[in-house]
């Protein structure tokens, strides 16, 4: 039984579309409302028991703007599948899959950090790499590639360091 037949059997009743991918990996496209159910079926009925990553692509200025991508690996069948779902740009939100794949928690946090996509139901959804009170999302296409205040944390640290310094106090008096 080929990959696509196994997926078609497992996803009975879910609307999905097989899309061509450049590298030849089996890729299916679903709506964002069906994504959770699709992924649950892929895990339970098709044997994809490992989540490789959760990430997104910014198609700005096209709408729907984001293309969310989950990739899954099946050890039993030595097989991979990628699931794509379009997410609107005005209030980007997606269902979390950490109840199905706990390992996706960090991927979803990174995706939130870089694109600002809110994973609904993720309990610990906070920034992973950027400062926690940062207002921008670096991998969005309208983010300047040299960044917005990239040195802010360093400047804050530097200010505190100078405030602590006895030499600085000496020269101020």
């Amino acid at each position, binding site marked *: 039984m080929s990959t696509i037949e196994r997926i078609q059997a497992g996803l009975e009743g879910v609307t999905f579309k097989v899309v061509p991918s450049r590298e030849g990996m089996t890729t299916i496209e679903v709506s964002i409302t069906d994504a959770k159910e699709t992924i649950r079926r892929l895990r339970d009925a098709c044997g994809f028991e490992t989540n490789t990553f959760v990430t997104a692509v910014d198609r*700005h*200025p096209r709408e729907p703007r984001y293309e969310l991508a989950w990739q899954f690996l099946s050890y039993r069948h030595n097989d991979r599948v990628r699931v794509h779902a379009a997410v609107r740009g005005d209030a980007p939100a997606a269902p979390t899959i950490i109840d199905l794949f706990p390992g996706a928690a960090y991927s979803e946090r990174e995706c939130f950090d870089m694109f600002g996509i809110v994973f609904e139901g993720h309990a610990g959804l906070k920034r992973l790499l950027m400062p926690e009170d940062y207002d921008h999302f*670096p991998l969005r*296409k*309208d*983010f*300047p*590639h*040299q*960044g*917005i*205040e*990239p*040195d802010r*944390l*360093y*400047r804050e*640290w*530097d200010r505190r360091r*100078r405030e602590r*310094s006895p*030499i*600085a106090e000496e*020269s*101020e008096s």
Partner: protein
Amino acid sequence: MGSLKHADAHSSSDAGFLATRVDELVNWGRKNSLWPMPLGLSCCGIELMAMIGPKFDISRFGAEAARFSPRQCDLMIVAGTLTWKMAEAARTIYDQMPDPKWVIAMGVCSSSGGMYDSYSVVQGVDMILPVDLYVPGCPPRPDAVIDAILKLQKKIERESPIKNLMAGTVVGEYDEGTQRFVRAPNQAVPTTSSHEVLAPGEYEKR
């Protein structure tokens, strides 16, 4: 802001004979026993290791005693890409090194950010550190860094520590008020929040 003075032993006439002789002795000792702090941040660190190793052998120039405690070093070699997250650590290490101390920016990443024209990378370590020598290359060959060490030795020869000590001159490029290096930051990096955000097509037009 403190006033910055640069002393030059060879041009001033009031330097005593004793001071200049002792200066030469001190500089001779300093330049031939540079102890590097190997801040190997990425691939330049490999070339740095090759430089310290037996093939290129910087012990010929007295600089082989790499110490992994900043308290024992006087030459900081920033070898590799410095990110803004690492910047605090790099500056802390620099501050912990005892005077006199020198900095070599090894490779284009630490010199200018290199190919990482990015929000996460420091666009040149001279934004946060006073740099004495820049070594171009990606990564530079060990010979290039050895050449930088030889040039640094020439630079150390021109310093006059004892004369400055006797005259009470403040040497160095420190701003006393802020304790910061006063060289202007690299202008290519936006540091304000009012940075213009353009639509995707607009960046290509500029």
